């Protein structure tokens, strides 16, 4: 029967399916709304930043970041961030261990404490440290007498970073610990392994990518940290001045190009670390069934 001679049903069935489903209009609309929002809110300012930073050409960037103050600030940022990464890597893993594998009263309180840095303004975190270690406090004076300065010195910066980045490793390791199967550890035990060997051979290997991913997050976050350091470090150039604070100084000093140049360096570091972080978090899920 030819199409022309067929009834209406056959003709509709024979026609190609419409390319635009009625529902798709709504989808396109909300996509357009969101994309516009992100374009205006995120893309435009970052573009402005990159424009300013690159507008003077590479020589401006080079000069800006070669300035001794800037070099020191960058080194200080990287150094303190690395220390925070290692320390929170170790202690964060231990905290996750206690939260997942120990039966202790008050675990909820510990879990809440771990989340505190997510809830509290970074500036306030810095203020807390000043309230504890400032030169006018009992603690500050006692330590000062022993030759240790915390506030307005580098230890203060590290403590601030440790506060602000405390949750990252914990929350990265916790889900992996929860995925471990007691049966694997029991199997190792049945095969004669002692608790230490079970820990090293069976428990730790799956944790390593998670710990690394968390520590990397700590590192990235620490490089960008501003509020707590602004409060506790005293912002002394060549001593306690970190890169973000240096950027602030440039802005307040009416030198937006240097500020933008240094910003681009930090941005570049962040962008380099990003794929590394993604690769690590994928490795966390890799060998699981």
């Amino acid at each position, binding site marked *: 029967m030819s199409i022309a001679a067929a009834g209406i049903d056959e003709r509709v069935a024979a026609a190609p399916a419409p390319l635009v489903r009625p529902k798709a209009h709504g989808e396109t609309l909300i996509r357009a709304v969101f994309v516009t929002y992100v374009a205006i809110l995120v893309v435009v300012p970052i573009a402005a930043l990159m424009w300013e930073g690159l507008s003077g050409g590479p020589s401006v960037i080079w000069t800006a970041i070669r300035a001794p103050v800037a070099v020191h600030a960058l080194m200080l940022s990287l150094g303190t961030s690395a220390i925070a990464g290692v320390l929170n890597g170790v202690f964060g893993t231990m905290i996750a261990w206690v939260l997942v594998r120990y039966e202790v009263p008050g675990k909820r309180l510990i879990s809440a404490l771990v989340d505190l840095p997510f809830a509290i303004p970074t500036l306030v975190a810095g203020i807390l440290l000043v309230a504890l270690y400032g030169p006018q406090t009992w603690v500050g004076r006692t330590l000062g007498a022993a030759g240790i300065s915390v506030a307005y010195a580098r230890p203060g910066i590290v403590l601030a970073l440790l506060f602000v980045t405390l949750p990252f490793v914990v929350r990265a390791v916790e889900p992996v610990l929860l*995925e471990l199967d007691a049966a694997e550890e029991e199997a190792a035990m049945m095969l004669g392994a002692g608790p230490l060997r079970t820990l090293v051979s069976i428990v730790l290997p799956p944790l390593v990518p998670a710990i690394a991913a968390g520590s990397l997050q700590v590192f990235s976050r620490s490089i960008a940290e501003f509020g707590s350091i602004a409060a506790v470090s005293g912002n002394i150039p060549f001593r306690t001045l970190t890169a973000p604070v240096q950027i602030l100084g440039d802005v307040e000093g009416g030198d937006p190009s240097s500020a933008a140049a240094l910003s681009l360096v930090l941005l570049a570091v962040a962008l380099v670390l990003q794929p590394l972080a993604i690769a690590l978090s994928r490795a966390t899920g890799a060998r699981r069934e």
Partner: protein
Amino acid sequence: MNRVLVVAPRRPGQVAVLGVVLTWLAIILVIPLGALTFTVVARPGDTIRTLLTPDALFALGQSITIAAIALVVNGVLGVVGALVLVRQRFRGRRVLDALVDMPLALSPVMTGLAFLLLFGRNGILGPTLEALDVRIAFAFPSLLIATLFVSLPFTVREVALVLEELGTSEEESAATLGASSLQTFFLVTMPNIRNGLSLGATLTVARALGEFGAVLVVGGAIAGATQTATTYIYVAMEERQVAGAYGMAMILATAAAGLLVLLQKRRREV
């Protein structure tokens, strides 16, 4: 299907780990908190007096307003964004995904600088804005925009996580039962993402209230005009107004504690 080996710590090694953890938390978090609380509580009169000044109240009010607006705007758009990123397939989706995470990678001062470069007097849009007699930099709008920027990712991420876990089968069932997109969204999707949304909303508010670097740069911390609670503290510290600074810090810390309680509740429900 898996069991987790949970024990009461009795062996010396286990007790040691517990001890180390508690000591670490004490040194890093608890004792500093205690120090502030102690200092503020020891001089209540001074603190209350400085906090009741118009400047302080204005700064606090401004922070709350900004946080409220950020909550609504980024809350709604966060849900929209999550739907777009998780349920749709289109060219550039990965780019959009990465862009949403950008605010997390930037240091707050860089954010402030970027907006200053846009809206400042010598900025890209500076002359245009002057001609239109619109003040953004060093005025309320810039504070709001900067806060929206930094708090963008939270709701999107939390809701996206939940959407991914849920899968599309419920929405597909609704479609086969004749529901329109809007009906499906409000009757099926919304109830399911409620927990993710609350969690995201809590984090959004926390981030908004806590924003400091960007609003400092782009607002200038002008008393009675562009000060937020955080920049108030900063200025107060610079001017050695310790009572005011500590007092406001205490308020923010208490608000954080409240948000924390909400966070814990939400985490356990998710």
